């Protein structure tokens, strides 16, 4: 399988990876590359600010369509800041749980109603 690099700054045209809409652009490139049998390296070089909202759409939603083992094998990251790494790990762990049990949120509402 061929390796390609997706440069986030270039993809979103910004050093701030903060808006969910921009995350969607990154997500679409990753899925296109995966469909074309490419391994993806996501480069965070020169990214100065990240929000979890951006990372949720860029990376988190991959877990809806792809198995964890597939993502582990075909996606890597580089040049990410320490705080970015912490945020990304948290986004990934949240996504894994969310797609394993999408009804958990509804149950948490029901629990409040039941008191």
């Amino acid at each position, binding site marked *: 399988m061929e390796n390609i690099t997706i440069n986030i700054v270039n993809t979103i045209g*910004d050093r701030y990876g903060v808006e969910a809409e921009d995350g969607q652009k990154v997500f679409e490139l990753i899925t296109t590359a995966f469909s074309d049998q490419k391994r993806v390296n996501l480069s965070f070089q020169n990214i100065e600010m990240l929000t*979890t909202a*951006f990372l949720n759409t860029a990376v988190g939603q991959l877990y809806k369509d792809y198995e964890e083992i597939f993502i582990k094998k075909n996606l890597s990251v*580089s040049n990410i800041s320490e705080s970015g790494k912490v945020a990304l790990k*948290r*986004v990934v762990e949240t996504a894994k749980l*969310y797609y394993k049990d999408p009804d958990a*949120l509804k149950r*948490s509402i029901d629990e*409040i109603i039941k008191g």
Partner: protein
Amino acid sequence: MSKLISINNTFESYQSLITLYENYKAELFSDIHVEIHQFFAANISAALGAVLDKFNSNLNDIHFDYISPQIETILSKNDFLTYYGKQRAVDVNNTTIKFQKLKPTDGKYFKSYVINELIEGHTSDLPRMSAGVKEKIVEAIYEIFVNAQIHSESKFIYTCGQFYPNKNTIEFTIVDTGIGFKEKINRRFGSNLSATQAINWAIQDRRTTKVDISGGIGLAVLKEFISMNKGKMQIVSSDGFYQFGCDGELLRKFEGEFPGTIVNLQFRTNDKINYSLKSEIDINDIF
């Protein structure tokens, strides 16, 4: 005529703003007279601006019949009163973070606002924050702004802040006039939660109303940072009030409803924690 007296970041002050809104929300083509006395926390301009804009959208005329001179100076320095026909004043102490009214799609303007007002502005003067703390504060403010963009369904987002060098704090307030936590959650899950129940649900980790996309981390991350920084966060949404700070958590109900959501953040600028420490996360073990 409505008098706003000693408006700060307290439950009672938010109640005064809600009462102002409730008193005039049904008015159309009227003259609304407001007086501001004694004290007005500059950052709360964001919330007052949102309420007055609701009145403006009903084609009412706003008249400031009296503003205490000191308050008028501050609200002229932070640009708030320039939206109401007053002249801008120069902020020689450089402690204001300007009042801004943005469309949710104005993310790029918000970025230059944050850079000018928080990152590059105020570098030569007060307060001197460590780079790590400044980055965490900006990150927290962004999480809230993006939340308002995604969830509020508001036409505008109002922001304002203030440095308090003597207290070593920054206050920053983000306000929208959208559907609020209660409506958003109840629509998504077909539930009937109260505003306080809805806020309390949303601030827990991994709670999101988004469909098919995981999330709900932003508010939890903010709360963790506020806890380490020994700051304070407050959420006013519909008739719900939530506060988290050194004194713990507080949930209360207002008389009447705020027409949207206020998030008020207080950060300590003399925080000595090193937030740039290397994490133990292996870059090859993220997925």
